[in-house]
């Protein structure tokens, strides 16, 4: 144990080695214990009590040794057990109907217990070693107050600025200073280019076909309209849906279920259910079938908690609620814009297709919303 002695020296005195003079001959003739005492003395530490804990070979000494080794042995046993379990325990997923479900369920807890226990016992062992085996000591160390002595501070700053002056880094060496600035700037750029890379691409480079304007629902170049398909690519027909149902559909293009702006909810409402449509989106529905974007206009979560009696569609993230019977306008929560409606019709084979792309922005943030240029204007060409 070390006891620090506050206020041992007044501020400003020399805080380096205490005034201990040792000649070379004395140093040579010193035993190991004397050297250890000298080292402590040089650091301003005085050992009040110091010595072995137990008589070597005594029962107490053996007991202490056994107690500490037991922890280290446990550490080893648990570590080896972890390796064995990690390699050989059956870790493959088992259903609730298999006989080996318990073994599978125990895998993760077991590797946690073994490796964690191993680390814990190592820590306990080290603490026990310090408390039972290492020499018993009570030490007093003088502590200095405040900052370094005045002379130390003056001389250090003198040394540093003298080097700077003599190198000519203040008045001369413009090339060197310039190259240092360039080096720092280049390395800084190298560190940030990954983050800045996303800002380099011009989102308007493709003009009317920019990703900001177009979703995968846009008809192909040859005028082919995109089918509404289920997650596995099955095209959807009107009779697939019962009145009062909702199906999540994706564009029938390759990888259609992977696009972040493409998921659409296809609703079939009950006949004679009164529904209002937003101005400019008349005829987007097909009979009792309505298709709306599934991406919440708040922060883009999938809106999918559909209450088929009330026509409310809830977003699970921040409890926004949209009213299907009122043009999918938000009626509660942080979302401020209605979900965009996808115009749908049937193709010649009786499958749902998207008549055109969405006519407004899908999802949350879009910096053109309600600003100039408005949606659909320059740089997008009017289709």
């Amino acid at each position: 144990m070390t006891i620090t002695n506050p206020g041992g020296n007044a501020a400003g005195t020399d805080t380096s080695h205490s005034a201990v003079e040792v000649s070379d001959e004395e140093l040579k003739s010193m035993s190991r214990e004397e050297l250890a005492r000298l080292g402590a003395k040089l650091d301003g530490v005085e050992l009040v009590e110091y010595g072995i804990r137990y008589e070597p070979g005594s029962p107490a000494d053996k007991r202490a040794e056994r107690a500490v080794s037991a922890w280290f042995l446990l550490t080893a046993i648990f570590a080896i057990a972890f390796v064995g379990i990690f390699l050989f325990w059956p870790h493959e997923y088992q259903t609730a109907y298999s006989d080996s479900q318990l073994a599978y369920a125990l895998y993760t807890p077991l590797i946690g217990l073994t490796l964690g226990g191993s680390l814990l016992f190592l820590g306990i062992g080290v603490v026990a070693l310090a408390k039972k085996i290492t020499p018993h000591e009570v030490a007093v160390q003088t502590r200095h107050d405040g900052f370094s002595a005045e002379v130390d501070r003056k001389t250090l700053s003198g040394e540093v600025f003298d080097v700077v002056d003599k190198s000519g880094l203040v008045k001369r060496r413009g090339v060197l200073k310039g190259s240092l600035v360039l080096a720092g700037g280049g390395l800084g750029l190298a560190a940030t280019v990954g983050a800045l890379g996303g800002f380099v691409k011009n989102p308007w480079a493709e003009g009317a076909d920019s990703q900001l304007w177009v979703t995968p629902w846009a008809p192909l170049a040859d005028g082919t309209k995109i089918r509404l398909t289920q997650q596995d690519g099955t095209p959807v027909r009107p009779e697939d849906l019962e009145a009062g149902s909702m199906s999540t559909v994706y564009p029938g293009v390759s990888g259609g279920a992977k696009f972040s702006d493409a998921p659409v909810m296809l609703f079939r409402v009950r006949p004679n259910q009164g529904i209002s449509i937003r101005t400019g989106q008349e005829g987007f529905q097909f009979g009792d079938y309505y298709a709306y974007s599934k991406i919440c206009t708040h922060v883009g979560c999938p809106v999918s908690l559909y209450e088929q009696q009330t026509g409310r569609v809830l977003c699970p993230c921040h409890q926004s609620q949209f009213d299907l019977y009122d043009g999918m306008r938000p009626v509660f929560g942080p979302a401020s814009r209605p979900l965009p409606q996808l115009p749908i019709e049937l193709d010649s084979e009786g499958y749902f297709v998207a008549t055109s792309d969405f006519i407004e922005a899908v999802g949350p943030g879009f910096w053109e919303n309600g600003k100039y240029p408005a949606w659909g204007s320059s740089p997008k060409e009017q289709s």
Partner: protein
Amino acid sequence: MKSSEKGPRKGRLRTKMVRRLSGSLALLFALTTLGLVYVALSPTPQTAVAADVSAEQVAAGAQLYANSCITCHGSNLQGVEDRGPSLIGTGQAATYFQVSTGRMPLADHGAQAPRKEPFFNPEEVDQLAAYVQANGGGPVVPDGELQNTDALALGGEMYRLNCASCHNFTGQGGALSQGKYAPNLDPATDEQIYSAMLSGPENMPKFSDGQITPEEKTAIIAFIQNNKQSIDPGGAPLGGFGPAPEGLIAFVVGMSAIVAFTLWMGSRA
């Protein structure tokens, strides 16, 4: 078609009688062909094939209906304004779900009918369902095994896409708007889950066989039931809500243990 022979015999065939006969035959042929083509090409909508029900069952069901349901659903299942909806066309599936889970008969009009102890025994449930099915038809829960334990992965995928948003990814249920909620799936049987998917009780959307095929439905049921019987990792499910409560417990319990241990170590020094 082959053109008819040209020549003197043509005139003899062209009597008014023959013309009429051949014309109507051609029309009949055309209509039959059209009908066959239509039947072959038109998609078959979801049709329910009711299990064999006897007239006694329907009669017993009618009696039960008159005793317990008629107040809100009307004498001809047409529904009563502000009390109960029409049951015509809801079918066996809806009746089975509502009555076997004890939601019907309704105790009181609230935001949602809670699950409670069933009022009718299984036999009476079947009789009521047969009676409702006999009046307007509707979806029917098929007989046989409703769990496809070989398709757990497919069931999980379909569950996460169609069910998890309301019923939570471990089937614990969750809140909806204005006091409504998606119920916990723990007490639900295979037949109840299947009939709920078919009939869309309360605010649950309907999932017809065109939208989720019967194979996918049985896979979803297998996934739900497998989840219920799985041993929870770590032993305690902590409500089945995933990382938030798990992290809280880890932080509170784990950090408390570490702090207590260090304090104890310091006190022993």
